[in-house]
């Protein structure tokens, strides 16, 4: 009878961003981890490899402002613990926790305690600053905390607005990050879809797949590790949880659940309309078309559209 089925606009905004920040932390962790391993396999590690990492986070200028040169330690520090970097793991987990604290009356106690413990774990690691001795362990712990979040969310929160907005935040953020990781990969070696990649390039493609935890699932679906197949999988696959298409599909589902309209109504607000349009574009896209338009161009437009959807969410639900 005291249903909190409807959220305050401010609360919905906070909770949506909680989902986004957490997803961001997870992506950064996975991304650094994979690339650290990749460096071991590269014949020669160059500054540009480290630069590419910073580039994926989208904060190159900020990095240059705070660090004299692009070394492994600096990049890890910047992406992991630097509070000057709003997208570092520490910053995003701190923000996740701050948002969780703000909406503590909405989320389940178990979820709050997990976010809080996650934050304390990162804070302690930042103080000790010893992760360089065992980076893989640290980053995989970060990933595990994020999986734990997902599990607790799934099993302790009612399927109501609060749940839907967290999931919506996660999937939109994930779509954006997958697009970005692909885009940077595209930026590194020149892509010719007709060519089977060289060993060296192959290693890099494996790293890209691993960056989104996709290697195994990819191999179960495709024989050749060609650029074409990889793009096909990470952009258009219907079943893989980190493909852009999948993320859009889920986002649309949550938006429909939030507006609570029956399936006979095509859309009931602007956010739903834009999301539906974008999703149906991908429904009927194929990889050749994307190559013809240019992968970079395509991903760039996609990211712009995701940003527009984010703005529209604000106008539709969060503004007051």
């Amino acid at each position, binding site marked *: 009878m005291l249903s909190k089925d409807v959220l305050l606009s401010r*609360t919905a905004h906070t909770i949506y961003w909680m989902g986004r920040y957490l997803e961001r932390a997870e992506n950064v962790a996975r991304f650094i981890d994979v690339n650290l391993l990749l460096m071991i396999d590269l014949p020669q590690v160059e500054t540009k490899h480290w630069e590419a990492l910073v580039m994926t986070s989208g904060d190159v200028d900020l990095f240059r402002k705070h660090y004299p040169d692009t070394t492994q330690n600096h990049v890890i520090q910047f992406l992991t613990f630097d509070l000057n970097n709003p997208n570092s793991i520490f910053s995003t987990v701190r923000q996740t926790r701050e948002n969780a604290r703000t909406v503590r009356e909405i989320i389940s106690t178990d979820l709050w305690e997990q976010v809080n413990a996650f934050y304390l774990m990162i804070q302690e690691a930042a103080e000790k600053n010893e992760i360089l001795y065992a980076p893989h362990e640290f980053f995989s712990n970060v990933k595990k905390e994020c999986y734990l979040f997902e599990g607790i969310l799934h099993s302790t929160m009612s399927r109501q607005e609060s749940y839907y907005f967290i999931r919506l935040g996660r999937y939109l953020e994930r779509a954006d990050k997958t697009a970005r990781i692909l885009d940077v990969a595209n930026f590194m070696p020149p892509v010719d879809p007709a060519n089977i990649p060289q060993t060296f390039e192959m290693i890099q493609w494996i790293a890209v797949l691993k960056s989104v935890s996709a290697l195994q699932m990819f191999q179960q679906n495709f024989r050749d590790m060609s650029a074409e197949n990889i793009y096909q999988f990470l952009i258009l696959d219907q079943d893989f949880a980190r493909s852009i298409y999948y993320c859009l599909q889920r986002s649309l589902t949550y938006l429909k659940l939030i507006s609570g309209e029956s399936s006979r109504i095509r859309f009931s607000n602007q956010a739903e309309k834009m999301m539906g349009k974008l999703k149906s574009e991908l429904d009927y896209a194929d990889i050749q078309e994307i190559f013809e338009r240019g992968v970079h161009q395509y991903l760039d437009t996609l990211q712009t559209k995701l940003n527009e959807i984010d703005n529209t969410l604000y106008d539709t639900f969060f503004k007051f």
Partner: protein
Amino acid sequence: MRFTGYQTEHFHDELFLTKNQAREGAELLIKKIDSLTEGELLKRQQSAERSMLYMGITFSLYGDDCLGKEQIFPFDIVPRIIEAEEWEFIEKGLKQRITALNLFLEDMYGDQKIIKDKVIPEYVIYSASSFRTPCIGLKPPKGVWCHISGIDLVRHSDGKIYVLEDNLRCPSGVSYVLKNREVMKRVFPQVFEASKVRPVELYPNMLLRTLQDIAPNPVSNPTIVVLTPGIYNSAYFEHSFLAQQMGVHLVAGSDLVVQDGFVQMYTTQGLKRVDVIYRRIDDDFLDPKVFREDSLLGIPGLMEVYKQGRVGLANAPGTGIADDKVVYAYVPQMIKYYLGEENLIPNVPTYLCWQDQDLHYILEHLEEMVVKSANEAGGYGMLVGPQSTKAERAEFATRIKANPRNYIAQPTLSLSRVPTIVDDHLEGRHVDLRPYVLYGDNIEVLPGGLTRVALKKGSLVVNSSQGGGSKDTWVLSKKAKS
């Protein structure tokens, strides 16, 4: 860590009658603690602290917006025990006091009979900064003004309980009562065995019922909200905790708006009507149209809706006049005037600086007294005579003379003590007690309360902002004697 060697010194101890002799009701606890292996009590203490950190039971001091500086409210694992019979008396005394204070509020913003009958001097009321002229003529639902109160009690060396002050605005701390108990059960379950401790867990339900009681008619399923100043307020944890426990929305002023004659909140599905507001912001900030114009925390137009009887507010605006420390001195007279009864729990003798004969006495005896500012809380604006320097006393004398209405003085009490973990052993530390009283259709007292403890040796100031901590408070049920 054991009680062997524990000294009550010349203080009243809440657990011990004298050295090695436990009070009735405390025997089981003491036996239990004494039977622990060496180091175990300390381990449990540390585990309690860790659990509080992980549960996020933290607060940040005012003006401290940096996350890193968040801290847990210090907690001591040795509980304070109150026997059933004594609690029965306390409960009766508190109900009597709250009944009278509520009648006083009604009178103050109504006919002011108590002034006309010269029981309380007019001057005391009109000079009080907490008297709210805009509240004159208000008629809160069911005549209840102070729905949630916290009354601070202390025990003196004579063994008697006294009321130290009344808190009728937005008393905080009840979340710690609940969380302290939860942590105790998690880390130290065996001490509860056989002690028959009365549960405190029902508080959120009691509070919810109280709030439902003041919903404007004829709402059958009222929308209730907790109004907070925001995430940087030191009591934010408590605000969100209570909202969560009651299953209601936690709102900030900016989430609310007055539209179409009602208070409404902005939701993802548009505006939604609010029926009852448990407000945790002061009168001053409630409605910039009526109180402080510069308030950004409040809701413009709220008071008008309230006057129309279209929203319930807990507590009602204006209750601050009843916990002004000068007005406090008149509570025994109020009880007599409104109820025709003698007060059950006595006041601490109080000297009023605005009365000349008292002022002389106070200035001559500053070294023995505690001086308090009439309107401040949190242990601020206070002089503890016996622990003050000559310079501090001189400064206070000047302040008192400049604004005598704003100060009261009381003899320094020798607060009772409870054994507390200090490094690796137990020592007595001074405590007070804040029980919580709810006033809806009935008056209810939560069987428990916040025992605050001054952790510094010899200190009498228990406020968290001044190095105080807290303890679980056990009210025993009648059959506790085994």
